[in-house]
């Protein structure tokens, strides 16, 4: 039944759109589409972004692993290598600190009327993605494939039952959120 739903192309495009509407609504209502909130997070003055992300990861992690244990969902961890994740992540971070939006929150910021997100952020990300596509053949072997660790999850690497890691990460997230609330940020 689920397989049949997954295979229906038009339905999937509609589902993507509907989930996006929910995602955009929540990001905007949470304040995460605001430049001031994102930069405030990077400057440790406003912890909204971290609170949203940690509670999303906590709820998502428990639910998605439950769906998986029930045989209703499969995981799709992204592959990675030191040569892709570390330099790519740091360049992303540089852009994050300068732009003050990320790709998803820039789209949300466009919806709330932020023109810098549209003509700066969205346009810039499109140009950057195009530059990367052009550089990809030259980067692939010497950089991107260096230190490949595959599409593995932390439980797979540690050879632990996924639920053990889910439990440990849940406790850590709770502790961190509790600490943030206690320190009044």
């Amino acid at each position, binding site marked *: 039944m689920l397989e049949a739903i997954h295979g229906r192309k038009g339905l999937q495009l509609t589902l993507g759109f509907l989930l996006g509407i929910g995602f955009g*609504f929540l990001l905007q209502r949470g304040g995460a589409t605001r430049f001031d909130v994102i930069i405030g997070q990077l400057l440790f003055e406003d912890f909204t972004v971290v609170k949203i992300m940690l509670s999303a990861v906590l709820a998502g992690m428990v639910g998605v692993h439950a769906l998986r244990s029930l045989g209703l969902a499969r995981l799709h961890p992204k592959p990675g290598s030191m040569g892709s994740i570390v330099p790519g992540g740091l360049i992303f971070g540089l*852009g994050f600190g300068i732009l003050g939006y990320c790709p998803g929150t820039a789209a949300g910021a466009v919806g709330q009327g932020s023109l810098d997100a549209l003509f700066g952020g969205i346009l810039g990300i499109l140009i950057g993605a195009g530059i990367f596509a052009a550089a990809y053949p030259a980067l692939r072997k010497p950089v991107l494939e260096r230190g490949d660790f595959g599409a593995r999850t932390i439980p797979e690497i540690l050879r632990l039952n996924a639920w053990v890691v889910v439990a440990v990460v849940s406790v850590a997230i709770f502790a961190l959120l509790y600490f943030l609330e206690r320190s009044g940020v």
Partner: protein
Amino acid sequence: MDWLNWLTMERWSPYAVGIGIGVLSWLAFLLSDKPIGCSTAFARTSGMIEKAFRGAGVDEKPYYRQFAPVIDWEWMLVLGIVVGALLSSLLSGGFGLSWVPPLWREAAGDSGVLRWGVALAGGVLMGIGARWAGGCTSGHGISGTLQLATSSWLAVVCFFAGGIATAMLIYRVWL
């Protein structure tokens, strides 16, 4: 609390918002067999634009053979984000056209051209970095970490390390 009031209030608790996003990720895995992500849609769009100018040969570029320049589930998701944020900001009264965010104005003045140029430069770096790392704050930062993917936990550390260092340098040292 009356639900209409709730629908029009300016901000929701970050915990309610986060849990809501977590629930959306359950639905994405269950109904679409996909994690929520954003930056691949930008790569596909960039390919579509290039294709409009340079023709079908663009499909043969090694990168676009992996990420075909077509409208897919994730592309519709990003379009949905724009619509969802528009709805939210219209309902709460937070919608407003602006070039310069308040915090930027405080630090660097109210020149829209300066803000545009800086945002564009930041966007270019972000586009390169997101595709280099194979994901962004959604695909790695939320969907990848919730799957306990090794690549994504490392990526989110690098995103924030780079972002914090850059923001500190700009707002604490420069401006």
